[in-house]
């Protein structure tokens, strides 16, 4: 009787201590016949497809352009230490016509998600990652409103977004070409606004595209 109670207390202690509320295993499944996909789902491991003679690399065929997407940027990335194409990109105009109010709003939303984190919601180069030097980001992001970038042509901006510049990485995988060009329209509109130009931002934009 005494032995039994000791064993019982020990067992209870072990269960209580051993029960962590952190669930590191997904748990049991009962008959997952209709649960597991027979088709290849996103992120499914398809390494062994090649063994069955099936070619698949989850990338679009070279040279294809998605519906509604802009044509690819004609310049390649410069080699390290070279800046020929970066300079040449100045001549490339923005293929998108001036944005209407709704498109501008969408461009602003995309800017705030993807660019504002560093370049700031006011385009002052002081986003939450930099915070005037208190944030974790080491380099001060470019202040997009101001003399230095007001005169930067659309094409050169696109070059930087497409291939990255200095500490900035490429955003080609996160934004479509159309989205990138429309964000550049948005930045140009904001720059015109900051300059205090009485002209409507959209009108300002169309002239900047025409100028090349």
């Amino acid at each position: 009787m005494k032995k039994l109670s000791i064993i019982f207390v020990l067992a209870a202690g072990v269960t209580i201590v051993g029960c962590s509320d952190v669930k590191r295993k997904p748990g049991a499944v009962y008959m997952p016949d209709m649960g597991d996909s027979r088709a290849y789902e996103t992120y499914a491991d398809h390494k062994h497809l090649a063994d069955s003679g099936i070619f698949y690399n989850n990338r679009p065929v070279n040279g294809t352009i998605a519906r509604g997407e802009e044509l690819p940027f004609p310049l390649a990335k410069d080699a390290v230490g070279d800046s020929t194409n970066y300079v040449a990109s100045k001549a490339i105009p923005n293929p998108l016509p001036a944005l209407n109010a709704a498109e501008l709003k969408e461009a602003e939303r995309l800017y705030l998600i993807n660019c504002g984190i560093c370049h700031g919601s006011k385009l002052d180069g002081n986003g939450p990652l930099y915070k005037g030097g208190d944030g974790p980001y080491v380099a001060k992001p470019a202040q997009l409103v101001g003399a230095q970038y007001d005169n930067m042509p659309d094409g050169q901006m696109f070059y930087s977004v497409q291939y990255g510049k200095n500490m900035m990485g490429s955003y080609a995988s996160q934004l479509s070409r159309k989205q990138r060009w429309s964000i550049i329209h948005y930045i140009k509109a904001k720059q015109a606004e900051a300059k205090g130009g009485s002209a409507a931002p959209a009108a300002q934009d169309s002239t900047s595209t025409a100028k090349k």
Partner: protein
Amino acid sequence: MIHLSRFAGKLIFGFTLAFLLQLGNGAFAQDGKALFSANCASCHSVTKKSTGPALAGVEDRWPDKKMLHAWIRNSQAVIKSGYPYAVNLYNEYKIAMNSFTSFSDADIDAILGYIKTEAAKKPEGPTNPDGPVAESDNSLLFGILTLVLAVVAFILLQVNSNLRKLADDKDGIPAQEPVPFWRNKTYIAFVAVILFLVGGFFTVKGAIGLGRTQNYEPKQPIFYSHKVHAGTNQINCLYCHGNAQESKQATIPSVNVCMNCHMSINEYTGKDKLFNAEGEEVNGTAEIQKLYKYAGFTPGQPWDASKATPIEWTRIHNLPDHVYFNHSQHVAAGKVQCQTCHGEINKMDEVKQFADLSMGWCINCHRTTQVQFKDNGYYSIYEKYHENLKNGKFDSTKGITVEMIGGTECQKCHY
């Protein structure tokens, strides 16, 4: 007397001078800071390598102060002159420094002064001496308390029966043969009912939970804290999971998205220490090093993205194949916040599955959630509903739920 006043006058003069000098010094440093952040900070940091070298101790690296001034004003000219340190510097970074011809000597000295004072400051590490905030979990205490009370109750019952036996003996009532408690029918029935209830509860609960993975919190290959990224640093969910607004899958960001920021951020310097779910401290900087291993990146050198290998994160949220779920339908058309289904992800260090993702959970939300008709082109075709809302046939405060536009039809999700 005259002597004393003259002495006092000198003293006051001295103090004023010192004060003015101090003020001048402060203004000087301030000016340097402004100049530094406007002209230098986009490529240089004081303590860390960025696009250009870290600037702490820059004056000691240049043997000649005149040469340093010339370099800042026009670096190309210094390189062309063949000055060995300048040539080496260009070969290391492979990027030409902008020319700052408009800087006066005083400007450059102000910047160098600012760099000196910044470099002398000690770096602040993460501070949180209290350790993890112990979450008050009382269940163990309650368990012990229950056990103690049960033992006390049992002892009292025994005492009671013994006392009664004594009393009966005294009164001369013949004592009944004492029945040990494990053969006592009342006890046995009681225990059986309790076991049935408890066992039944856990069996049903376990059966319902089969295949559901609520609270699943796997160890990921890299300790990636959503709290630090989405909470402290306010990065939008869609920055990394951009496809949530465009496709069925929210998608996990590829390594190049991490490297957008981590090319520059190579150590964790946040104020809060990091802890995993077990309460063990995690070294943030070491976790960033793990990312560099996947990316094939060495800090301070240009990164070749083609050398990166994917990080195999463990999937947490997983719906069975017979359910169709589309992220963009919910995020873009329905305008549902990420946190509605994923919980307060911006407060989680390690992500765990917040909702049970059961059918009842889906249906309940479809029954109560109002359709966001306003400024939403996706629902413009529901003219009848728009009309009825305008006419007051439908209570506009209650709105139109997802169920009313067919959100609980079987074929919506099962086909």
